[in-house]
């Protein structure tokens, strides 16, 4: 299969993730959408790696995964804390800071 198709898929996944961030309310879901975007990036990296015939992209994918994992740790911690204070995971409920 033409590797370019994987790129299209990556772009699509990225867009889906981004759209999810824009339209979903639940912080967890939102965060998952961001993860989806990161994974889209990974797919792109791997595809390009294949196209160029070097391994840089694949190595980067691993780094991305680690970073994503770290983000999950921090992110979930923060989201859980705020859920405990507000009993809601909706990002729209946190609107104290504005204007």
């Amino acid at each position: 299969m033409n590797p370019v198709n994987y790129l299209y898929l990556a772009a699509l996944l990225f867009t889906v993730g981004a759209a999810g961030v824009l339209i979903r309310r639940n912080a967890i879901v939102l965060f998952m959408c961001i993860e989806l975007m990161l994974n889209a990036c990974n797919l792109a990296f791997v595809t390009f790696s294949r196209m160029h015939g070097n391994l840089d992209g694949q190595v980067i994918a691993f780094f991305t995964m680690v970073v994503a994992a770290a983000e999950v740790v921090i992110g979930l911690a923060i989201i859980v804390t705020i859920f405990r204070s507000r009993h809601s995971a909706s990002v729209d409920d946190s609107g104290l800071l504005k204007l």
Partner: protein
Amino acid sequence: MENLIGLLVLAPLLGAAVLLCGGRRLDRAGHWVGTLLAAVSFVIGVVLFAYLLGRSGDDRELGVTVFSWVPVGGFRADVGFQLDQLSMTFVLLITGVGSLIHLYSVGYMAHDERRRRFFGYLNLFLAAMLLLVLADNYLLLYVGWEGVGLASFLLIGFWQHKPSAATAAKKAFLVNRVGDMGLSIAIMLMFTTFGTFAFGPVLGGADGAGEGRLTAIGLMLLLAACGKSAQVPLQSWLGDAMEGPTPVSALIHAATMVTAGVYLIVRSGAIFEGAPDAQTAVVTVGAVTLLFGAIVGCAKDDIKKALAGSTMSQIGYMILAAGLGPVGYVFAIMHLVTHGFFKAGLFLGAGSVMHAMDDEVDMRHYGGLRTYMPITFVTFGLGYLAIIGFPGLSGFFSKDKIIEAAFAKGGTEGWILGGAALLGAAITAYYMTRVMLMTFFGEKRWQPAPSPAEPGAEPAAAHGAGELPHPHEAPRTMTVPMIVLAVGSVFAGGLFTVNNAFVKWLEPVTGHEEGHSPVSALTVTAATMAVLVVGVALAWAQYGRRPVPVTAPRGSLLTRAARRDLLQDDFNHVVLVRGGEHLTRSLVYVDHTVVDGVVNGTAASVGGLSGRMRKLQNGYARSYAVSMFGGAAVLIAATLLMRAV
């Protein structure tokens, strides 16, 4: 000898400085200090006069440059004096009449607690007036010119607690400023044209300049003269100026300052001679004013205002004569001097009457005073005869010459001017007779004194309110000057005419030509006599035969208009004052709403924009994300677009 010229100015200036800065310590002797310094000035003047007489006719010009005043580039203004026959004439008039009036004021202002200051102002006036006539360039003349304006302002408004006096003072200064504007533009024109504004070079080089330029300078000088000499259209301040103490009216607003315009025009003869159009304007102004003033003088019941109208009118004669060129210069000055005597005398007489009548100025409340104050009556009467041109008295000689010269202008113009001058003489006779009759003849129409004036007002009313006045002759300090001036009024004209002395005296400076009148001199004199008789008779018919009503009758349309200065003040009020008020008020509005509004509006619109943009920051993380996403899209699109372009 030259250094004495500076001293002439310095003496009264010193007096002013000492009296104004000296403080209360000088209250007791201040008036004598002032009078003494005025007299010193007069003595110096006489010494100089004698010195000049000792020299030959063409060599009577003294000049001295004191110091370089404002040197900037080609602009060289010096403080320098020039004493020639013309200035000398003025010096003697100013210091002479000035000293007399100082003396008079000692008595007149005896009860005023601010007498020291009054004398300070008078001395200041003398200094400024002397500077005016002694300056050897137009800029220094301008200093004196405004200086007398300042003194006039201070003295008109001397009784500042009276709002009318303060207003009159302000008005005088303002109207004069309009004239001053003319003088400064004239000086600027001279500088642009000749590169200097000293008398010698400017007047000497006047033939080199184009007629247009000279006309412009001439018209601007005329504007200046109109302001200072109360000529139409800038005459309106003089009537109000009578708010000042009477000695002031006599000195400044009759004898000296108001004649400065005549001096200016005569002095600048060379310019006017190169500008016939400007001359025409001058004679027109003179003729109009002499009638205007005379008509106003007929209607006024206030003795000082009637005399003020007369002053205007007489100066109109002088301006008319000055506008006629070399034919008239000498007579303008001659009339100026004789007028100085008799008008000052008349004012002092009026002051004496007011002094006696508890500051009453309405002639309708006078009557029959001749027996109560004989000296005043006699001196006033002599002044009266002089002004109406009674044969043999000074006014006769000087006025007659002017009327003659006016006819000598020739052509239609000559007839019109001569006719106007003749008509003016008739009216003069009429209104002066009216003043005379209402004041000194007829039955007593005295009224109880008005409620007491403010404390420290004009010579404090000796009696309480509600009492009839007890007229009495004035003290010696007042009568002596009146007598001296009366003597002058009687003999000056004759003295000047003997052997053509005055003409010969002034000719080297002003030049002189004999006029060629279409009518003979004798005819003119006869006509003058005729109109004089008519005028006196009319007045007698109206005010001598019949009792004078205590309250003024409504009068004809012309009378009513004349009482209101021929509506000129109303015109000023509507057009200038109201218009000005509207203008300033709308400008204040514009400044606040438009000019400032634009700025505040900008600030407000930034604020409004800020408020609206702030709403975008709505606190929702997802809308922030939308902004980021959109931003990224724009960023990408723009980058791609840049490449495409």
